[in-house]
């Protein structure tokens, strides 16, 4: 924030811009992550149900052991998917809510001032 000795505001700006870390545009893809979350959530549930059915239809304890492992894996995948979905859908929702709130406040302000303009 402070200027180095002999530095102008423009110099500081150039320095700060030079130090700026510009993120890779591919890093933040909320829509993609949202879709991944939905796929994982559904896929995990399908995996868990399939594992249950496999274990239910066999008397082999080895197969049942495998099915339990797959089932738990499915539940874990589903939980991770749900977390991703909530994270990215909540962000979109809150962003929309904030925009809506700002718009409402601006409208209220205009109403209170009776569309006042300087005369």
């Amino acid at each position: 924030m402070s200027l180095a000795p002999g530095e102008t505001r423009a110099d500081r700006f150039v320095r700060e811009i030079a130090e700026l870390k510009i993120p890779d545009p591919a890093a933040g893809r909320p829509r993609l992550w949202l879709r991944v979350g939905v796929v994982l959530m559904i896929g995990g549930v399908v995996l868990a149900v399939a594992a249950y059915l496999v274990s239910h239809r066999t008397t082999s304890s080895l197969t049942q052991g495998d099915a339990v492992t797959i089932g738990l894996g499915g539940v874990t995948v589903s939980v991770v998917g749900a977390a991703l979905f909530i994270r990215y859908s909540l962000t979109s929702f809150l962003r929309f809510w904030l925009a809506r709130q700002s718009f409402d406040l601006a409208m209220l302000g205009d109403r209170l001032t009776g569309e006042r303009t300087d005369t």
Partner: protein
Amino acid sequence: MIELIDIRAGYDGIAVLHGVRLQVAAGRILALLGPNGAGKSTTLRVAAGALRPTSGTLVLGGRDVTGADPRDLARAGVCLIPEGRGVFPNLTVRDNLLMMTFTGRGRSEIEEIAYARFPVLGRRRTQAAGTLSGGEQQMLALARALATDPAVLLIDELSMGLAPVILTKLYEHVAEIARSGVAVLAVEQNASAILRIADDAAVLVRGRVERHGPADDILRGELSALYLGSSR
């Protein structure tokens, strides 16, 4: 200080800007003029980093910052005053100013800067911003911008809803801010008001810069023709 090179941008696949080239040096004011729908506000959004161009380059301080987070650009010193003043109407003048403490400046310092430049805000510090007159709200918007210690100031339609006499005073403040070394890019429909203080001007028509040059030349030249679309 700030340079837009062949910027193409739009919304949801609809192109608004078709290769815009502009540059503003430190301490200078560039007036961006043009009719409604020309893409003036979109140009400002690109310059502030709020809208990523589909192609082209945004250069700040000699560095390509296309795609940089607008918050990082704001922290570095790019400040956008949006159309419609952008103040929080239900917060007091003081609270509006203190929103700018994110820059790291102290509360008292921010208030000192704002009230020194706009004494009327000091007298109204406990008043809700929504109850200020249009001119005072614009003063508050400018004061908030000053509190960020901007290096690049982007102003969208300062004249909206203001009487000419108030606008002239506000633009005198903008000219003073520019003289302190700030690069100012001001979008304006009220061409005569901004051209009195601007060093350079550009006329944007349908997403293309039709004319770019010294403000005096634009003022004397074919401004009305460019606005109205007639040709010689």
